[in-house]
C-alpha cells in the first residue's frame, strides 16, 4: 500500500448543478498507478466528480468528505485544503461524509477507501484547486453584479470585496450568479508562503463531539423497530455449522429469532444483552474442517521449512550470494514476528435495513464501495440501491476495510425484513479478526575488512494479504505488502538480495497499521544494528555513513539523534536505541530510551521522533499521529501476540491481549522537519521505527538481541 507514485496533476473540476441549489462543484481525481489492481474505473469512462463543495444561498459551505474519520484527523485536514483557497473560516465549514459510489473512489486504490495513509496525499492538489475555482467563480459573480472588473475584487473570510467601493457580499448572496459563471481553467493556487491555514495547528472539527458522548459511531446507530444480533462463529478458522439446536435459545427472554447465516448462527433479540444470553443457550455442532489441528508451533515449522528454499526476488542488486559465499566476516540471524489482532476499541458492528427496493447500511467502514458491493451481492440489488451511511469509526487500523461484519448484518436483515444491528463481542472481534501476518526471516550480511557492509541478504516467508483480497496485485510471486520495509532498504550496500516466499497457512491475514513496514522494519532496522555492532561502530554513525544517497532518511536520523542527545550520558541502567524508516512517502526516525523495571521487563521512558512528511497540513495532527503510531507500535513490541492452538485463537480480550497503558506510556517528543515536498502519509509512518528502536536500546542495555516479537527478556 505504499504510495511511490507522484500525484497525477490531471485532476479537473466541473460544476455539477445550478438549479436553485447554489454552487456545487465536483472534483475529479484521476486514477493513480494501481497499487490495488482491481478497479471500478476504466479509462475512457465518463467524468465522475469525487469531491464536492456545496455553497447554498443561506451562506453555508459544506465539504463532502469522501474519507472515513477514524482518528487520523481527515475530517479536518480535507476541509482545510478547501478553506485555504476558498477564503473561508474553517470553523464555519460544515462536513458530511460522502455516500458510497464510484465517484468517491480513492485514486490510489481504484475503489473507495481510507487507508495506505493516502487521504491528504491524494487530495492535496485537487481540493485546493476546487477551493480556488469556487473562489474565482464567486469573485466573477460579484464583479458582474457590481459592474466592475474582477481584478479589483478579492475574496476574504467568506465575502467578496470590491477594493474601490469597499462593497462586500457574502458567498451565499453570490452563489446563484456564481453558478452561471463559466468554470475557470488553470486557477492560480496560493504559494506556500502565503498560506494562512495550511501548516498551522487547527482545532479538529470532531473534537467537541468526542468529549460529550454525542459523536455517533456505528455501534450507536438507532433505527425504529431495530433488532440486535449476536453471531456464534466456528472457533476454528474456516469451520462450518454442521447442525444446531436453537430450542433453548429461542425460549430466552427477548430472543426473537435464531437463524443460520454464512458466518455462523445469528441470535436476534430486542437488545444486545438478550442476544448474547441467547447465544450462550445455543447448542451447535461444528464441522471444524481442515484447520482443526492448526497450531502456532506447526505454523513456525512450516515457515522455517519454506525459508530453506529460495524465494521470489523482491530486489536483486549485485551478487549477494557470491559475496556471502566464503566471506570471512559474515553476520547471520533469524527473525520472527507473530500474528497480531487489530483490537479497535469499538468492536466490529454494522446496522442494515434490507427492503425489496433498497438497502441502507450504517457502518464505520474504511471501504464504502466494498461494503456496498457486499450488500448488493447478498441482496441481489444493484449497487446504487445500496446506501452506505458512514459513521465515525472507533478505530480502524485497516480492520474496517473488510466487510465481513457488513455481510452479517445484511444477511440477517434480509432474512427478517427489519433493521438489524450486529454487534461483535470483544472475544468475537479478537478471535475472528483478520490478522497481521506472522513471518519468518533469514538474514545475512558481509563486512569488508574496514567494517563496511558489502552484502545484505534477507529472505522473508509469510502469508500474503493481497492473495486473498487483490490477487492481481501479486506479481512474479511478490506481494508488495509483504516486502515493503525490506525491499526498499535505504542503505548504500553494493550487493542486496531480498527474497519473498508466500506461505499458505490457514489463518486469515489483513492490512494492519503500516502493514509490511510494521514488521519488516523491526527486522531490517534491528539487523542493521547487529551489523553495526559487528563492525564495531556506533549504530547511529553506521547508519548515517550509509545514507549519503538518502538525504531525507539522513536528515530525520540526525534530527532525532540530536534531540535525543545521542551519545550524551544517561542515568545508570538506561540505554538508547535508534531506527529510521520511510513508509507511505514519509521519513521517520525514532530514538527510544529504555531501562528495566523491577521484574526485569522493558520499560520505555522516553521516545524522540523526527518526521519529514513533506508539506504539513495540520501540524498538531502530525504530532498526534506520531504519538499514536508510537504507542500502537509499543503495544506490538512489548505485548502483542496472537497464538493458535487446535485451529483456535487463544487470546480473547485485553487480559491476554493487553494494550499499552497510561502508566507504561513514555514521554514522547515529536519534531517535524519543515518541508515543501509532496505530502506523505501520517496515519501509519509513526509505527514502524519504534519496535527496532526499543529492541536496539534493549541490546545496548543488556547485550541481548531481540529477534522475535514481542520482547521477552525477563
Amino acid at each position, binding site marked *: 500500500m505504499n504510495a511511490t507514485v507522484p500525484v497525477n496533476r490531471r485532476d479537473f473540476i466541473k460544476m455539477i448543478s445550478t438549479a436553485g441549489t447554489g454552487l456545487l462543484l465536483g472534483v475529479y481525481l484521476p486514477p493513480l498507478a494501481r497499487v490495488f489492481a482491481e478497479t471500478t474505473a476504466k479509462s475512457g469512462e465518463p467524468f465522475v466528480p469525487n469531491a464536492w463543495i456545496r455553497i447554498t444561498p443561506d451562506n453555508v459551505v459544506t465539504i463532502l468528505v469522501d474519507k472515513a474519520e477514524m482518528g487520523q484527523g481527515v475530517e479536518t485536514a480535507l476541509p482545510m485544503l478547501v478553506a485555504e483557497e476558498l477564503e473561508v473560516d474553517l470553523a464555519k465549514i460544515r462536513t458530511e461524509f460522502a455516500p458510497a459510489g464510484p465517484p468517491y473512489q480513492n485514486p490510489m486504490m481504484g475503489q473507495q477507501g481510507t487507508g495506505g495513509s493516502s487521504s491528504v496525499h491524494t487530495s492535496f492538489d485537487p481540493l485546493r484547486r476546487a477551493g480556488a475555482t469556487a473562489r474565482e467563480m464567486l469573485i466573477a459573480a460579484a464583479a458582474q453584479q457590481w459592474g466592475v472588473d474582477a481584478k479589483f475584487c478579492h475574496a476574504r473570510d467568506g465575502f467578496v470585496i470590491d477594493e474601490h467601493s469597499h462593497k462586500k457580499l457574502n458567498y451565499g448572496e453570490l452563489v446563484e450568479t456564481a453558478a452561471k459563471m463559466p468554470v475557470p481553467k488553470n486557477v492560480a493556487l496560493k504559494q506556500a508562503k502565503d498560506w494562512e491555514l495550511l501548516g498551522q495547528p487547527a482545532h479538529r472539527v470532531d473534537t467537541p463531539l468526542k*468529549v*460529550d458522548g454525542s459523536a455517533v459511531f456505528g*455501534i450507536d446507530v438507532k433505527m425504529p423497530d431495530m433488532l440486535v444480533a449476536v453471531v456464534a462463529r466456528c472457533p476454528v478458522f474456516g469451520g462450518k455449522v454442521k447442525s444446531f439446536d436453537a430450542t433453548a435459545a429461542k425460549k430466552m427472554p427477548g430472543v426473537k429469532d435464531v437463524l443460520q447465516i454464512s458466518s455462523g448462527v445469528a441470535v436476534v433479540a430486542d437488545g444486545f444483552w438478550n442476544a448474547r444470553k441467547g447465544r450462550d443457550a445455543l447448542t451447535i455442532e461444528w464441522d471444524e474442517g481442515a484447520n482443526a489441528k492448526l497450531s502456532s508451533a506447526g505454523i513456525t515449522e512450516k515457515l522455517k521449512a519454506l525459508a530453506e528454499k529460495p524465494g521470489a526476488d523482491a530486489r536483486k542488486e549485485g551478487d549477494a550470494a557470491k559475496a556471502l559465499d566464503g566471506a570471512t566476516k559474515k553476520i547471520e540471524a533469524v527473525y520472527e514476528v507473530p500474528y497480531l489482532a487489530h483490537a479497535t476499541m469499538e468492536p466490529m458492528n454494522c446496522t442494515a435495513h434490507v427492503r425489496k427496493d433498497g438497502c441502507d447500511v450504517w457502518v464505520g467502514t474504511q471501504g464504502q464501495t466494498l461494503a456496498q458491493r457486499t450488500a448488493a451481492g447478498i441482496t441481489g440489488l444493484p449497487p446504487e440501491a445500496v446506501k452506505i451511511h458512514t459513521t*465515525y469509526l472507533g478505530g480502524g487500523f485497516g480492520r474496517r476495510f473488510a466487510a465481513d461484519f457488513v455481510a452479517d448484518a445484511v444477511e440477517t436483515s434480509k432474512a427478517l425484513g427489519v433493521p438489524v444491528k450486529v454487534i461483535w463481542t470483544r472475544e468475537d472481534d479478537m478471535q475472528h479478526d483478520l490478522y497481521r501476518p506472522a513471518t519468518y526471516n533469514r538474514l545475512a550480511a558481509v563486512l569488508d575488512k574496514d567494517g563496511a557492509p558489502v552484502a545484505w541478504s534477507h529472505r522473508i516467508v509469510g502469508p500474503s494479504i493481497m492473495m486473498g483480497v487483490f490477487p492481481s496485485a501479486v506479481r512474479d510471486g511478490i506481494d508488495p505488502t509483504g516486502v515493503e520495509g525490506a525491499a526498499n532498504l535505504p542503505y548504500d550496500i553494493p550487493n542486496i538480495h531480498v527474497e519473498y516466499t508466500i506461505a499458505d497457512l490457514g489463518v486469515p491475514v489483513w492490512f494492519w497499521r503500516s502493514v509490511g513496514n510494521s514488521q519488516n522494519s523491526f527486522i531490517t532496522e534491528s539487523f542493521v544494528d547487529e551489523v553495526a555492532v559487528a563492525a564495531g561502530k556506533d549504530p547511529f554513525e553506521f547508519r548515517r555513513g550509509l545514507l549519503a544517497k538518502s538525504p531525507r532518511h539522513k536528515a530525520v536520523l540526525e534530527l532525532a539523534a540530536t534531540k535525543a542527545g545521542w551519545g550524551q550520558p544517561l542515568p545508570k541502567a538506561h540505554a538508547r536505541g535508534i531506527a529510521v524508516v520511510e513508509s507511505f512517502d514519509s521519513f521517520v526516525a525514532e530514538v527510544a530510551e529504555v531501562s528495566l523495571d523491577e521484574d526485569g521487563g522493558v520499560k520505555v521512558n522516553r521516545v524522540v521522533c523526527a518526521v519529514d512528511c513533506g508539506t504539513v497540513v495540520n501540524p498538531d495532527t502530525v504530532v498526534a499521529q506520531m504519538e499514536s503510531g508510537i504507542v500502537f507500535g509499543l503495544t506490538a513490541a512489548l505485548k502483542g501476540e496472537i497464538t493458535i492452538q487446535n485451529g483456535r485463537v487463544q487470546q480473547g*480480550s*485485553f487480559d491476554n491481549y493487553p494494550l499499552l497503558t*497510561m502508566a507504561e506510556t513514555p514521554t514522547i517528543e515529536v519534531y517535524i522537519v519543515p518541508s515543501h515536498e509532496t505530502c506523505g502519509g501520517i496515519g501509519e509512518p509513526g509505527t514502524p521505527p519504534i519496535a527496532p528502536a526499543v529492541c536496539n536500546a534493549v541490546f545496548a542495555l543488556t547485550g541481548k538481541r531481540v529477534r522475535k516479537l514481542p520482547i521477552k527478556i525477563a
Partner: protein
Amino acid sequence: MATITLNVNGRKQPVDVAPETPLLWVLRETLGMTGTKFGCGRGLCGSCTVHIDGEATRSCVTLVGSVEGKKITTIEGLSPNRSHPLQRAWIAEEVPQCGYCQSGQIMTAAALLTRKPHPTDDDIDSSMSNLCRCGTYVRIRRAIHRAAQEGTTK
C-alpha cells in the same frame, strides 16, 4: 420483569429490564444514551465508565438491579455544553483521535479530580487504567493537569 427506577443524570428513569442486565446496556439501549461505550464487557478497558454515587464504575459489569436508588452520572450528564474543566481541557489539548474510549477516560478523570483536585503523575498512572488504542495517553495526562489548574483558577 420488575420495574427498576434509576436516577440518571438527576432524572428518575423507570426501566422495565431484568435486574441482572448490565447497566451499560440499559443506558445504551433502554434509555438511548449512547455516549457510554461497549469495549470488552468484562471491565477490562474502561470504555463504559460512569459514576455511581461519584465513584468511577465500569457499567458493563455493574448489574442494573444493584444501582437502583443510587446516583448515576454518564458523560451526557457531566456538564451542560461541554463546560466541565476536563471537557474544556480535552478540547484545548486536542486529546481525542477516534474518540471511542474518551467518554470513559473523561469520566474516570472526573472522579479522580473530585478525589484529588491536583493529581500527580503517579496519581494519574494509578487511577487512569482505561485503555486507548489510538494512544492518546500523553495528551490525556496533559489535559488532566490543565483541568486541575484551570478548575481552581477560574
